[in-house]
């Protein structure tokens, strides 16, 4: 069975945090009905697109986040649509929202007077309180505000952009966790509640490492390009790609040097972790010279056979071709009427007694409009 089987989820969220939260529920059996504006969710406009031609049914981001959900369209200038939205929200178990409800003048308390067990997941960028509550956020702004990027990049260049939307995925996981607690509570008490998560809080929680360390007197981390801490915790290029290594203690470093055919790099000026850190530039040049003749797969295999933490810096192509993920039967093929058949990322975790499965392709914009008219949930 699926743990969220039959759960009625109304997803009014327009961006990644709410939509990944909705995906976690949909892939565990939830009936997720999306409400989109007439032009479609902003995630439908996230490219790049095939042939550089924007198409709301071919956005990689949208297809990833919304497979297996249903879609209907709401025109927020139309009173009948807003009334339908209110009815759907009042008949749901969970509403996942990032601002539409307030914009539509629908408040949680009035919904709850009709449906006391309703759980409202309320997602924001900077938070729904405080001086920045109305400030606009995207991923880059949250990376900046949360302390995430201050130490990312080369020393003489600005902090770099870390990648798309990670704080929103983190917020989504907090939201899914909070939603499940709220459902657990609602089952026991009959009362729903509001689950509030901001992307800023979410990002701060993963960057606590730096903040709490700073309070303990650890010097602030500086930007060191591809190195986190000397060569022993860094990314390094091989003949055909890059590897990551976390090789700090002496025994592991000795083994790493053996594997790359340079036992001398564990002696003299490089004999201890402290020396390796102090002489990192010289050490890196010598390590790179050795690695330039070696293949990623060979270095990784040989290191891991000796319990040394070295891994490939995998590209999206490497991942789709990964023998590890294939052996785990991880990917799920999903056929979409417009975008074609694509391999979707598999389960983020596996529960022995709760099935994970992407229920179907991402919806075409408004394909389930009838659901809105008939107030149709699958259960």
């Amino acid at each position, binding site marked *: 069975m699926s743990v969220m089987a039959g759960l009625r989820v109304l997803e009014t969220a327009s961006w990644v945090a709410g939509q990944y939260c909705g995906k976690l529920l949909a892939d565990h059996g939830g009936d997720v009905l999306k409400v989109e504006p007439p032009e479609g969710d902003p995630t439908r406009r996230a490219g790049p697109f095939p042939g550089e031609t924007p198409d709301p049914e071919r956005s*990689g981001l949208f297809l990833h986040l919304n497979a297996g959900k249903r879609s209907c369209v709401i025109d927020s200038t139309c009173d009948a649509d807003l009334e339908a939205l209110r009815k759907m929200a009042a008949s749901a178990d969970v509403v996942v929202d990032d601002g539409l409800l307030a914009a539509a003048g629908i408040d949680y308390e009035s919904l709850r007077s009709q449906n006391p067990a309703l759980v409202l997941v309320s997602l924001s960028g900077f938070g729904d309180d405080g001086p920045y509550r109305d400030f606009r956020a995207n991923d880059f702004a949250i990376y900046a505000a949360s302390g995430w990027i201050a130490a990312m990049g080369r020393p003489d260049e600005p902090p770099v952009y870390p990648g798309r939307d990670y704080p929103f995925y*983190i917020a989504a996981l907090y939201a899914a966790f909070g939603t499940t607690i709220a459902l657990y509570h609602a089952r026991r008490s009959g009362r729903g509640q509001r689950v509030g998560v901001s992307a800023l809080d979410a990002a701060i929680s993963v960057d606590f490492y*730096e903040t*709490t360390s700073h309070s303990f007197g*650890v010097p602030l*981390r500086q930007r060191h390009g591809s190195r986190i801490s000397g060569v022993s915790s860094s990314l390094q290029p091989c003949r055909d790609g890059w590897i990551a290594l976390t090789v700090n203690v002496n025994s592991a470093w000795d083994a790493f040097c053996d594997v790359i055919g340079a036992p001398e790099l564990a002696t003299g000026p490089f004999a201890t972790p402290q020396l390796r850190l102090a002489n990192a530039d010289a050490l890196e040049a010598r390590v790179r010279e050795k690695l330039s003749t070696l293949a990623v797969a060979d270095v990784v295999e040989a290191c891991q056979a000796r319990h040394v933490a070295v891994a490939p810096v995998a590209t*999206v192509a490497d991942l789709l071709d990964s023998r590890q993920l294939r052996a785990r039967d991880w990917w799920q093929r999903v056929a979409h009427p417009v975008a074609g058949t694509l391999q979707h990322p598999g389960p983020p975790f*596996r*529960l022995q007694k*709760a099935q994970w499965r992407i229920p179907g392709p991402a919806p075409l914009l408004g394909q389930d409009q009838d659901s809105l008219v008939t107030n149709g949930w699958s259960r």
Partner: protein
Amino acid sequence: MIFEGLRIVDLTMGWAGPLSTMLFADFGAQVIKIEGPGRLDWWRRGSASKPPPDMRDVDAKVWERSALFCGVNRNKLGVTLDMSSPQGREIFERLVAVSDVVVESFSPRVMKKWGLDHERLAEINPGIIMMSLPAVGSSGPWAHYIGYASTTEAMSGLPALCGYDDAPILQTPFVADPLGGLNGATALAFALYHRELTGEGQRIEVGQHEGLIPLIGHGLMEYQLTGEIPARSSTGDSRFAPNGCYPCQGDDRWVVISVATDDEWIKFCGATGRPELLADPALRTAQGRQENRGRIDDLTSEWTRQHDRRDAMEILQRAGVVAAAVNNAADLLEDPQVTATEGFVELDRAVVGRHPYPRVSVRLSETPGNAAEPAPLFGEDNDFVLREILGLRDDEVRELRELGVVAETPMLN
């Protein structure tokens, strides 16, 4: 508290596992954290990426001084137990019998070696939920791979999408570990909800590698759709300008600015006092601004250099432009938004004193969490757990101490 009465036996160390159980401790679960008398949580040494301090300095209690350990173990009970001894495993089994959940993050062979796989735990306690958090997964050709945050992050595809044309870089918040913890917390919440519905316990596996890959789902889809591997961009989405990190007053001070739409461009020109740019037809469209990216970056920097980073943020945000001051870890503690929303709570702990830790990041209106108690000291709750929970007699506890099965001072060689 919603999870009052829920008991979790926690064998995990480092970041991922302890974060997953801390989220339950924040909501009232009794989390019994187990370390070995000579096998301390490795986060007591600080970061895996820094040379370790001398843990044998008994007078300084070096093992109690890790910010990282304190950061992910609040609200827990601290117990020591030598799991490699039969007596230690017997105590562990007695704990399993009176608990709801067991969490472990050893490499896949360890629990089996101890005779404590899920089958055995379910014999002891049929309703038990057992969660494992291996780095890669319990099966497949890489099952035995050792993973730390950076290597797990790398194999999961994030650095290949981050950095410069000629060099990938890592996330400094080490996302792999906290993502493992958050996936674990979500999975465990699902399992508890399942138990609420059906009465059944079960086994959970959180392969940290697999839990991280969905974060680059867009790139995996785009590659399949377009046939092109997404390029790295150190300044973010290169289709827009201005978009990136711009220098402000002071040393190493920056503000992020993102202007995507024509409407935002109009607001940006107004807020920065450059109405003449609006008249420039070359800059009216996103494509035009992209083609003139160098010029736009120059004139944006010219303006930001004259401003404090928070002033720049506020001026632009009040005009409706996405902008944010780049905080470092120290700035965060005095950030106006973080302060006003109580993003950090202070906890007072023996040996280390008062320090700030992130608040409970999920704000639940009816059953809120609470970051109340600091991380336990080494073996701090041995007596409580052995006597009050398991009902051991004084002489039995004394014998365990004499045998070195439990200890309050680390047994380091």
